[in-house]
């Protein structure tokens, strides 16, 4: 039995990216089994973060052994033997998939989501399922049935949501790779609050098969890791057409790693006035300005653009997403799977008890808003109105991209807020997603990268790209990460 990694050559997880771990594995410096053991040791040491819902210890070790065997036989994919954690919204065959909810607390999927299947095929070892806001509804990872997740940078604060567990796990260097999903900012905002890199691909770029649906026209799966280069590795494996997802696009997947090296001279970065208005925390604004100056040094030019309908994206989203959710969550009725209440009088009573006991408060709020917006007499005033506004928001981006190649701005209006601070005011919680929501409306790709610290807490820079232009986003983020080291900062104690 090999000595622990600490004793042999320091802690490889403290600074190791996927790229570095791949080199270490390839050169035989350590094995996948050792990496996986190390991951579990770190996870057990930091259970106070509550980043995970289910650990996959036995099977992970088997998968790691298989990866090591495959390597001996000559296999050499970039992700072979790399530990990964999946947000608990992805169906994983044989491992519980709870979606952060009592409704699915004991649900074991009979099949793998396409994303899970692809990461396995690429050689990743599934270590755990990460904690998340219930049914992906939230911006702070406080609505989970399994308790809130703590931000590793300050455990009295939220990690962001809904992919808070994945973000915290990567930030604390418990795993080098994680998956998340993003419907209104749920990859980007926790990435920003936890100081990691997270990408929401273009709508249709990554399969939603096996991804528990929240809002089908907005949901998208994506990678979360320390760097853009790492995200490029992960996206390379997860992207692509899937015939089982009727909204999957057939466009070829480019070589994301090749695209990283491109020089930024002449890059036009659009800066939207609306992103720097009221509501943006001054310390966050300052860090973003510094990051933009860095981009100028790298050869980019900043161009003024306007996204006039961005201000209406939040109200629009809080009609569309709940409307779609009210439909998607109708399947949770206690009949075929999941939670079923007891003590019911008849079928209707069974439905009502099951759903009121199985769902938490935020989920019920959103189901009701969605039901209201779609109901007779209100459908045109709310739902159709929101769909028209969605068109205007998308058109704003099309116009803006005539004048620039990427749009840059803050991911979140502030750094991580205190746990419990926004529980009494859903509106204040919803406004956290003010910069991220318009992107999902338009179906565009966007990522958040660590761009600085404000009072010791991470600040994320959001980059928005044209449809299917993930390669450019990863390139623009990568060049920044070559010139700066915010992405390499690790919270104290981890």
């Amino acid at each position: 039995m090999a000595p622990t990694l600490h004793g042999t050559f320091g802690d490889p997880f403290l600074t190791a990216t996927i790229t570095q771990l791949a080199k270490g594995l390839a050169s035989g410096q350590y094995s996948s089994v050792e990496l996986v053991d190390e991951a579990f040791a770190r996870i057990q040491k930091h259970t106070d973060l509550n980043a995970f819902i289910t650990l996959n210890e036995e099977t992970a070790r088997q998968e790691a052994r298989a990866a090591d065997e495959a390597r001996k036989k000559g296999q050499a994919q970039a992700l072979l033997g790399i530990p990964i954690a999946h947000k608990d919204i992805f169906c994983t065959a044989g491992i519980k998939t709870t979606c952060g909810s009592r409704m699915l607390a004991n649900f074991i999927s009979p099949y793998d989501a396409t994303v899970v299947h692809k990461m396995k095929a690429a050689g990743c070892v599934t270590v755990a399922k990460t904690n998340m806001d219930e049914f992906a509804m939230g911006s702070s990872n406080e609505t989970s049935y399994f308790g809130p997740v703590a931000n590793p940078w300050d455990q009295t604060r939220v990690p962001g949501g809904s992919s808070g567990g994945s973000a915290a796990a990567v930030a604390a260097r418990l795993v080098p790779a994680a998956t998340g999903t993003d419907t209104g900012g749920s990859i980007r905002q926790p990435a920003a609050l936890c100081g990691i890199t997270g990408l929401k691909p273009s709508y249709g770029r990554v399969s939603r098969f096996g991804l528990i649906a929240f809002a089908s026209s907005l949901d998208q799966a994506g990678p979360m890791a320390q760097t853009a280069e790492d995200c490029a590795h992960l996206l390379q494996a997860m992207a692509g057409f899937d015939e089982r997802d009727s909204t999957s696009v057939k466009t070829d997947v480019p070589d994301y790693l090749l695209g990283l090296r491109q020089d930024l001279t002449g890059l036009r970065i659009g800066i939207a006035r609306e992103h720097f208005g009221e509501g943006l925390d001054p310390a966050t604004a300052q860090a973003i300005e510094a990051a933009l100056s860095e981009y100028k040094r790298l050869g980019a030019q900043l161009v003024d653009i306007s996204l006039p309908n961005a201000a209406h994206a939040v109200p629009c989203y809080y009609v569309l997403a709940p409307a779609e959710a009210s439909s998607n969550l109708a399947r949770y009725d206690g009949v075929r799977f999941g939670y079923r209440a007891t003590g019911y009088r008849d079928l209707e009573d069974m439905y009502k008890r099951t759903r009121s006991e199985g769902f938490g408060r935020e989920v019920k709020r959103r189901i009701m808003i969605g039901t209201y917006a779609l109901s007779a007499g209100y459908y045109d005033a709310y739902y159709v109105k929101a769909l028209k506004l969605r068109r205007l928001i998308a058109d704003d981006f099309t116009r803006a991209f005539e004048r620039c190649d990427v749009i840059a701005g803050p991911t979140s209006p502030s750094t991580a807020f205190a746990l419990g601070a926004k529980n009494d005011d859903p509106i204040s919680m919803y406004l956290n997603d003010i910069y991220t929501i318009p992107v999902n409306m338009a179906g565009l790709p966007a990522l958040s990268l660590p761009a600085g610290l404000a009072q010791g807490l991470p600040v994320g820079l959001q980059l928005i790209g044209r449809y299917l232009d993930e390669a450019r986003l990863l390139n623009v983020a990568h060049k920044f990460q070559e010139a700066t080291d915010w992405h390499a900062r690790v919270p104290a104690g981890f």
Partner: protein
Amino acid sequence: MVACDGLTSRVGWCPVNKEDIEKIAHLARLGIDEQEQEAYAADLSRILGLVSQMNAVETGGVEPMTHPDEAGLRWRPDVARHEIEREQLLALAPQTHHGLYLVPRVIE
């Protein structure tokens, strides 16, 4: 149901009351008891207040957008695919009987 006129440019309070909650909850098959109805009514009113900000935007003649245009809905051949065994699916159910899902009596 209390009418909250989404067609005016009124911004702000858009009251939803307990009766509205009862109706909406029934549509959504959610069991919300009396004590909770008040709280949900207040929550929904605030959210609808936020949502009413949409009325400030003129959208006459704008085509509704249900999903990003490029990712259109694709059709597949109407051919059954057998991928998961019936037993695997039944094993997930809270109650089954002779290979069928068991629920409370529906027909008297």
